[in-house]
């Protein structure tokens, strides 16, 4: 194969170092793959840290939603702490959509998606890099939502089991959500389509999440709420695996 990076330079005046040959590490391997996943995640995190538009919108929306729910239920529900698990998970799911819309939306809008697709990387690396970045965003948002739900609904959410459940649920949500974001990125009405596609598929996570939060707040035993963790674990495992396997298919004919 005659394709090698050019190995000679004609003598020129002026800056000529741009035409030096480059050496690229072309062997594959897990470390190279992980390096790229980390690079993509880091890029997303850094871009967000600079622009600050995505995360602040998610946090603002979620805090607002909790307050509105609190007010709505205060008027009618005798024991507001009973609805707290539902409120927590509803807010997380809906606020998360705001973030997910931007996962690929921003790339498509700016045209940088082509740059990612042009790179000699396994497309699944894009998937995992973005999942990691989105997890960071969602967990940050949840760090705001949990204390506020705690205050407004007067429930102690800082149990390790509840937080573990929240983590697993968020993982499943982000894994499927990122894939669906890729699916909707180039279709019409992308922002409205994503929640319509995503939320019905999230029902197991939602039910398991509310179930385990409610069980723990009610003071039940691990044996009883363990089943919810089973659902979350199975969901996460199955869907992350499948997403990894088929992510490439999405970009088949750009």
């Amino acid at each position, binding site marked *: 194969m005659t394709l090698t990076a050019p190995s000679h330079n004609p003598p020129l005046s002026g800056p000529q170092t741009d035409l030096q040959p480059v050496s690229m590490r072309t062997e594959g391997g897990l470390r190279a793959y992980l390096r790229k996943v980390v690079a993509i995640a880091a890029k997303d995190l850094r871009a967000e840290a600079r622009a600050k538009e995505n995360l602040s919108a998610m946090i603002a929306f979620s805090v607002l939603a909790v307050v509105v729910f609190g007010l709505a239920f205060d008027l009618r529900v005798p024991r507001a702490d009973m609805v707290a698990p539902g409120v927590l998970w509803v807010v997380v799911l809906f606020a998360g959509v705001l973030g997910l819309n931007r996962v690929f939306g921003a790339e498509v809008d700016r045209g940088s998606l082509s740059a990612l697709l042009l790179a000699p990387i396994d497309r699944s690396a894009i998937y995992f890099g973005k999942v990691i970045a989105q997890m960071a965003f969602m967990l940050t948002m949840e760090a705001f939502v949990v204390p506020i739900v705690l205050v407004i609904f007067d429930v102690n959410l800082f149990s390790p089991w509840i937080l573990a459940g929240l983590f697993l649920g968020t993982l499943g949500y982000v894994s499927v959500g990122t894939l669906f974001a890729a699916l909707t990125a180039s*279709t019409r009405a992308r922002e409205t*389509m994503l929640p319509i*596609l995503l939320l*019905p598929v999230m029902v197991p996570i939602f039910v398991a999440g509310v*179930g385990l939060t409610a069980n723990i707040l009610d003071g039940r035993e691990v044996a009883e709420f363990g089943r919810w963790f089973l659902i979350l674990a199975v969901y996460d495992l199955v869907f992350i695996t499948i997403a990894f396997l*088929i992510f490439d298919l999405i970009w088949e004919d750009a």
Partner: protein
Amino acid sequence: MTTAAMTRRRTATGGWEVALLALNVATVIAMAALVWASLLYARPAINLSGDEQTAQRIFYLHMGCNIGALAGFIVSLTGSIIYLLTRNLDWDRATQASIEVGTICGLGTIVTGIFWAKPTWNTYWTWDPRLTTATITVLLYIAYLLFRNGIDNRRTRARFGSIYALFAFLSLPLTYYSARWFRSIHPVVFSGDNPEAQGGFALGATMTQTLFIAAIAFSLLFSSLMILRWRILRLEDRAAELREEIE
């Protein structure tokens, strides 16, 4: 040889056409039989009375629609997987057709469920795990159809549709189980509401037979509608291809 003659010859391909006609006729007969059986033949439930007793007859339609929705689920799950493996558009059309018919059956399940629930349990809606799963299924179907609608490229539409269908249907078993476990620990709020009892009536012989008729009738109905719809989709795609060739 005129084009019309060629087209006519293509569509009248003997065996399949006759089979489809037979299927459609069988469907009409079976559905008529079901109407008769559910309204007249099946004896009223002994332990129920008044409105509840009459409303119980909706149960046959309800179960039938459920079977249709289940058939839709199975066919579309198979269709999407096979499409992704073979890229044969016929399977994509089968997926779309079965989801469309499945949506109608699913809506039927929900509506008949509502009409049955009010006289029986004095509430329009119960979060019965089967009803919940049926509702989520219909929402998934509608999302699938809306999604497809927004994609112009034929192959991308088929591919993305199949990918979504795959995810959607994989989540349904988990949805069902989570709804079931949720119900079993949920405090009973409405009087007379026993989520596992399904309206609590004993099944007599005529009722079992009617259920059997319902199962057959709705399976036939699903098949006819799905195949007819599949044929239409095929012709639509063919028409689009011909239009492209002309240009």
